[in-house]
């Protein structure tokens, strides 16, 4: 499973699970980029069929509804493009 890395200010573990086709995921990725923090992201719809099951199980650990975007910040999970919550959590 290849995650992509975006460089920036260190804020511990910040992981974005997203879909490449989703407008809210794009807004979330843009917000994280604009905030200038370092994060990793994975387009779950682009994962090959062999790896998909493992990736789905990984996302479900954080968000049983398996919805996107799912952002994991340390031990906290934010589901959906919740701009205020994301800004606060990453301040």
């Amino acid at each position, binding site marked *: 499973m290849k995650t992509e890395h975006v460089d920036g200010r260190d804020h511990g573990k910040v992981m974005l699970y997203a*879909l*490449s*086709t989703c*407008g*809210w995921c*794009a807004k979330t990725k843009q917000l994280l980029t604009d905030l200038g923090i370092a994060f990793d992201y994975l387009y779950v*719809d682009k994962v090959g069929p062999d790896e998909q099951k493992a990736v789905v199980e990984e996302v479900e650990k954080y968000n*049983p509804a398996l919805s*996107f975007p799912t952002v994991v910040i340390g031990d906290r999970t934010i589901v959906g493009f*919740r701009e205020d919550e994301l800004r606060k959590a990453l301040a």
Partner: protein
Amino acid sequence: MNEPAPITAEEIDRVYCEIDHDAESAGYHLHPDEAFTKGLVRGLIENERRYGYRSCPCRLAMGSKEADLDIICPCDYRDPDLAEYNACYCALYVSRGVKQGEQTVGAIPERRPPRAERERARAEARKAPGAIGEFPFPIWRCGVCGYLCARGEPPLQCPICKVGKERFGRFI
């Protein structure tokens, strides 16, 4: 995997116009932010190429039509989300108020039930219907044109004569 030809701006425009026309002629509206909406349209085209059907760009498709049937756009959850949140889950479709800039759209919680529950419901739906008079949904009647529909709530706008939801009454 073979890389298909890239999706062109012309193709996005064509599909966007087609969806917009269908929406407007049935009393629905697309998100007024054209760049955002065209991004979603690109996602629909991409999913059509990948899976053979336009599954929701904001949900993970399983790649089997039967399993994804409820999220093929327009999805089963569009109208309840329009009624409750003024937009569908991915916000391709919005209420008239949002289109006119009088209402806003925030993050919409996922209404689609988890997979195990969906499979149970599908098995249930395959069973024979109950006795006459036992309907799984209320039936609403448009007071203007008589259009009938069986669903949780009437549509925001009558797809036939375009009058508003408030003109509907419970029929059965």
